[in-house]
């Protein structure tokens, strides 16, 4: 398995955590100053330079329990207080969201674009603080240095390592159920329509070649789906167009919804809104 997976796992889960906490802070009408302080403290702790330097060293993934402990501590690195039930629900939401993003990536390299989407959003949350913004920039540079030139095969190994980590997690998330990206059995819906990866060809064509190497015949067959070309490759530049919505803040769409999660039937979905974030 890949030894380069941990930074991507941590940064993306952290990004989802920031999205969810931002939404909950707004929903509970926490005063702006306090809400900002919570998010700034969490991002500042998450992207601490020494911690990032250690994180980016080639190493195996933490265990599930170990990673949960890291995020427990991170969530309490600010004036915010979460009870155990709230933390459980927060963590389940974070992991299912990132699992979805990794599973649905058009190509393995999209895992990097998903990460950059999270970084872009985190940067907007902390733009008022030059110091914390500098930390985020540092992490962007670390990502480009470590992942910018990896091959497709190396990214697929990273993606498979992540999918192994998330295997058998089928917690139902209400926002996914509402948007029909997740079924009632917890499985993500896989569309048979949409774009193929950039540089790939929609299925449905067979080309035959002569002994001289000339293309002599074309046949078509029903592809079983409705696929189109991707017109643009996602960019890893600082202000680049990532060309994917995966990793963007799905809670910031101004829809009236709750960040709820649920366990498999027959229990009813649990509501994060029923729990509360307290601040000191």
């Amino acid at each position: 398995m890949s030894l380069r997976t941990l930074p991507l796992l941590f940064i993306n889960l952290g990004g989802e955590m920031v999205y969810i906490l931002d939404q909950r802070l707004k929903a509970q009408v926490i005063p702006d100053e306090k809400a900002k302080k919570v998010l700034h403290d969490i991002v500042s702790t998450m992207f601490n330079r020494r911690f990032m330097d250690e994180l980016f060293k080639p190493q195996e993934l933490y265990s599930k329990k170990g990673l949960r402990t890291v995020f427990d501590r991170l969530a309490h690195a600010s004036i915010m207080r979460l009870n155990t039930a709230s933390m459980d629900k927060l963590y389940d939401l974070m992991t299912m969201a990132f699992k979805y993003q990794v599973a649905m990536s058009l190509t393995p390299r999209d895992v990097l674009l998903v990460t950059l989407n999270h970084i872009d959003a985190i940067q907007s949350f902390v733009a008022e603080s030059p110091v914390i913004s500098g930390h985020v920039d540092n992490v962007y540079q670390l990502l480009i240095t470590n992942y910018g030139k990896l091959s497709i095969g190396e990214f697929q190994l990273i993606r498979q390592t992540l999918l192994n980590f998330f295997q058998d997690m089928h917690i139902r998330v209400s926002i996914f159920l509402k948007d029909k990206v997740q079924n009632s059995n917890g499985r993500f819906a896989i569309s048979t329509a949409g774009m193929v990866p950039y540089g790939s060809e929609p299925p449905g064509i067979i080309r035959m070649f002569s002994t001289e190497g000339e293309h002599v015949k074309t046949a078509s067959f029903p592809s079983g789906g409705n696929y189109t070309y991707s017109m643009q490759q996602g960019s890893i530049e600082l202000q680049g167009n990532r060309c994917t919505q995966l990793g963007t803040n799905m809670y910031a769409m101004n829809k009236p919804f709750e960040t709820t999660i649920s366990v498999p039937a027959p229990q009813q979905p649990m509501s994060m809104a029923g729990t509360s974030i307290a601040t000191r």
Partner: protein
Amino acid sequence: MKYCDYPSRSLMVMACQRGIQVYDADGSVMLYWHSLVPPSSDEGECTPNIQVSASFARGISTFQDCMLCIGTDSGNILIFDVPTRGANIVLREMLKGHTAPISCLFNKEDLLGSGDDSGKVVVWQHDVDSNSIQVLTTIDIQGSPCSSVLLWEELVIVAYASGLIRVFNVLGRLHAEVAAHARWITAMDVAPATGLVLSVSEDSFAKIWQLKSEDTVEIEHKASECVQDVQLCGCRFTSVNGSSFCVTGYDLAEVICFAAK
């Protein structure tokens, strides 16, 4: 993991991180362990920005009914001699034709096909007289990892991460190219008696193709099955003529079986 069938025995072979484990047919006794971690290396001192993965083995095949072939992340293919009985499995040589991690191996008689993450495919041939294994053909189309390679009749069938399947002859001439799947093709199999090819992909489709190699080489689409909401990652024909097959998928506890009506 793969069951490797030899004339006088079967072995269960597991290609893992850091090594290769060989068990007897029912998996109850480990016969052989081969470590991929060099004894002088200390994984705690790996150099940043160079090492991307821990050592791993990937791709398992028998060869000429007496050898076991395993691919590695270094691009080398380990060839072991397998005795007719007992645990005296011996590493006989390393084939060095790839520099990218091996992704797949496939054997047919005296030929071994190997593919790697850069998209390169090598066809090796075993010469019985000299007992040596040499490169017969190299097919080096860069750009998309090779995810599966098959050998049937005089043909080499290669599946790519881009969703393409290409059909070459054993000397490397391209006969056909199929835009087969919308995502990474994760596995393929061939029914040797009929030339049916099975491919599965993360796009949730299993597709059947018919190869023809009489006057001209052709490939024709025969059938598609969608396993709804499952990213397929393994497949195998369960009959020699290809009238039935099974597939597996990510996060799926079941093996799903199909049969021709």
